[in-house]
């Protein structure tokens, strides 16, 4: 059974204080690992897809990295508008229609 564990559950940062969110996964053959951002009352918003170990992707203050067992979402010099819940999800190769298995998310709060 595919599993995704995210840590920490919640993280409070001061504006400008860089940090990382962790996503550990077990999957029977990884097709892709996804990061989404979810604001209160909204659906998840796509950020990145990573397909193979060693891959990195960046978008503004966010950088996602992938190893064979985990992914990190690095947040550099965060701003209050980065406050949200960040969800990690995996697609398994044997998922014929590419369903996603999600973690519970990390709730990030950035204070000014």
């Amino acid at each position, binding site marked *: 059974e595919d599993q*995704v564990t995210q840590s920490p559950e919640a993280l409070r940062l001061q504006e400008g204080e860089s940090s990382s969110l962790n996503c550990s996964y077990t999957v029977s053959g990884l*097709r*892709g690992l*996804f990061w*989404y951002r979810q604001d209160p*009352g*909204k*659906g*998840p*918003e*796509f950020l990145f*897809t990573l397909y193979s170990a060693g891959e990195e992707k960046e978008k503004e203050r966010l950088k996602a990295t992938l190893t064979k067992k985990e992914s990190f979402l690095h947040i550099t010099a965060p701003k209050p508008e980065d406050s949200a819940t960040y*969800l990690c*999800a995996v*697609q398994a190769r044997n998922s*014929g*229609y*590419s*369903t*996603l*298995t*999600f*973690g*519970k*998310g990390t709730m990030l709060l950035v204070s000014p």
Partner: protein
Amino acid sequence: GAGVSQSPRYKVAKRGQDVALRCDPISGHVSLFWYQQALGQGPEFLTYFQNEAQLDKSGLPSDRFFAERPEGSVSTLKIQRTQQEDSAVYLCASSLARTGFYGYTFGSGTRLTVV
């Protein structure tokens, strides 16, 4: 449309009542997914459509849950005889691809509260 539209945004149902939740995917999107998100949890897969065909319904929690997409565009998720444990946000997502391999776009969801 510009995005995935879901209605209603909020639904309060008395236990035992039937409800219908609507999803309007992005125009032309072939794949449509329904997910359930309980409070404090990540979304969990319910069912998948490719055009009008329901190709995977393995995530539907019981036979009280039923989904359809008769013309390959709008989809409806129906829950019969609602129970308190059905309280959750129901998310719809669509994708241009025949699978969700490249990820998909989510709607804002319908928050269902069963009282």
